[in-house]
């Protein structure tokens, strides 16, 4: 089936070539990081995680959001999702792959990564995260591929795919819950030490992930003449809108608890991110952009007459994805380290090396997604 990805238009190959160039850039930056150490990044003793872990966190959400098409299609028999289900599953595969690559890029000793399996430590949330992320990648790849293969042959999918797909539904919730637990169980990082972190992760994931899926259907319609259907898009837009409402509601509760209780430790990170702390305010414009853009986008998506107009739908989806990316892919992880355990305020600026590696990993993910979707669409349109 994969051979179908080897036949494409000029535009297809130009896109693949661009991704390969960016992957090359990423690999050369990673080589520099490998030879000089993680000191070439903006991370340091105080802000000990940066862009890599932040991208990882955002992308776990994207991976988990496949459930927003799998669940309605397989559990509720929503036929509108029949063409988009495979897009969701393959998006999950590429996002889960990027998650693992970001973790590897962040490790000081990636050559020892198998120690996580050699010395399994159930008390560590990382151990569970490695388990569920790998599991999720393979569940989606195997079930998506098998169903697609059956479609190619014109036969019903093998009976074992069904339980596997059902398994992927709770599994999607588990990957993002465990990812939230990576953060929410650390005793003195007060931005993360909150019980609503896991629900908020799920809400923001379902908002941003479904918005990405909607955007993907528009891209596929334009570049591959493959339309997943207006009805599917409309249904996804509603899901995205209400997940967005839940996300901003939960963010609001964080603000209430921190500022009404007036407990300094609970306030400080939020102050640093949204208002600035002791003259340090590098994220303030970004966080307000995220908040305003996110609220406006959710407002647009809620209104039925607006979301039915494709140009508004696209704008709202782009706004919501960017909003959540800033919030989760930048602010949440870095803001959690400020102030430090010794009450210092340290600013973090990613380096060019770090950003190149990040771009490279995104490109690998996009390449895998491109190849998988190219295959899927070729099968579906019987090219």
């Amino acid at each position, binding site marked *: 089936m994969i051979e179908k990805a080897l036949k494409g238009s000029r535009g297809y190959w130009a896109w693949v070539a661009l991704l390969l160039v960016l992957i090359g850039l990423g690999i050369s930056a990673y080589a520099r990081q490998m030879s000089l150490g993680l000191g070439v990044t903006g991370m340091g*003793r105080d802000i000990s*995680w940066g862009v890599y872990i932040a991208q990882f966190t955002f992308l776990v959400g994207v991976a988990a959001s496949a459930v927003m098409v799998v669940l309605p299609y397989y559990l509720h028999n929503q036929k509108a999702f029949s063409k988009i289900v495979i897009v969701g599953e393959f998006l999950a595969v590429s996002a889960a792959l990027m998650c693992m690559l970001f973790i590897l890029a962040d490790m000081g000793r990636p050559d*020892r990564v198998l*120690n996580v399996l050699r*010395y399994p430590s159930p008390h*560590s949330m990382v151990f569970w995260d*490695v388990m569920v992320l790998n599991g999720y990648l393979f569940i989606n790849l195997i079930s998506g591929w098998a169903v697609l293969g059956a479609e190619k042959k014109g036969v019903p999918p093998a009976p074992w795919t069904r339980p596997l797909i059902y398994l992927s539904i709770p599994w999607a919730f588990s990957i993002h819950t465990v990812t939230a637990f990576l953060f929410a169980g650390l*005793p003195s990082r007060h931005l993360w030490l909150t019980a609503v972190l896991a629900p908020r992760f799920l809400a923001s994931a379902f908002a941003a992930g479904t918005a990405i899926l909607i955007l993907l259907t528009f891209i596929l319609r334009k570049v591959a003449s493959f339309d997943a259907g207006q009805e599917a898009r409309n249904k996804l837009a509603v899901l995205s809108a209400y997940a967005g409402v839940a996300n901003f509601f939960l963010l609001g509760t964080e603000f209430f608890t921190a500022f009404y209780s007036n407990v300094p430790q609970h306030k400080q990170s939020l102050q640093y991110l949204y208002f600035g702390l002791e003259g340090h305010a590098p994220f303030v414009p970004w966080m307000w952009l995220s908040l305003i853009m996110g609220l406006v986008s959710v407002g647009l998506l809620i209104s039925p007459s607006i979301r039915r107009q494709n140009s508004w739908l696209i704008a709202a989806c782009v706004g919501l994805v960017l909003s959540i990316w800033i919030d989760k892919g930048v602010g949440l992880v870095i803001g959690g380290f400020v102030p430090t355990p*010794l009450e210092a305020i340290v600013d973090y600026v990613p380096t060019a090396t770090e950003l190149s590696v990040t771009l490279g990993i995104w490109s690998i993910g996009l390449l895998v997604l491109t190849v998988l979707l190219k295959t899927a669409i070729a099968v579906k349109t019987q090219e």
Partner: protein
Amino acid sequence: MNQQRRDFLRKAGLGALAGIGAAAGMLPLFALEKTDMTVFTDKPVPGKVRWGMLVDTRKCREGCNECVVRCHHDHNVPDFGKSKNEVKWIWKSRYEEAFPTASKQFQSPDVENRNVLTLCNHCAEPPCTRACPTEATFRRWDGIVSMDYHRCIGCRFCMAACPYGSRSFNWQDPRPAVKELSATYPTRERGVVEKCNFCSERLVKGQLPACVESCAGNALTFGDLNDPGSELRKMLAANETMQRKPELGTLPSVFYII
């Protein structure tokens, strides 16, 4: 002697030799290099000993940095200055930095400006060991929170988990930044986390930790927290002391007299 018989004898001989070799490995009596069995006779009882320290900040001298210098020298801690790549095992902090949740209004200027020695607390309930995915950091039988530099994957979860900023990562190769190489402790590689080990390499030889030994003002008292008769426990009973961020339930083994 026919060929078969010769083969049999040769194989049997080799087998016997291998057997003696294996036995020599297993039974110390036959060993060519004698194993020091006394090490195994006092097999440590987990939880019996809990090493701890009391820092008397009143005795800590202004401008003196002897303990920091001595510790960092003995453990080959690299010196990257005050950069983001800094590695430190023990250092001086201001009172407000060491006890951010115990700060108060109208603090006496003396306390406000006082230097407080900060190091790993060797918590009885360490959040770092809980977060570690490979048991590369673990709590020893004697309460010391230790590091296995050969197992650490450099994920830095322990650093995010530590509420005291006591852990450092080797962001670059530490060896060129070790000024004077010490033979008392191994150097580390790039990409792993390190921290104070309460001088476990000295304790095993019956010596006090380097910082305690080097303190001219006798500001540091080291001992067994589980032994009610120890000097440390007597001092804890006789003085009003503090632990850093006690509200987190980590049960630090380092105490402070302010």
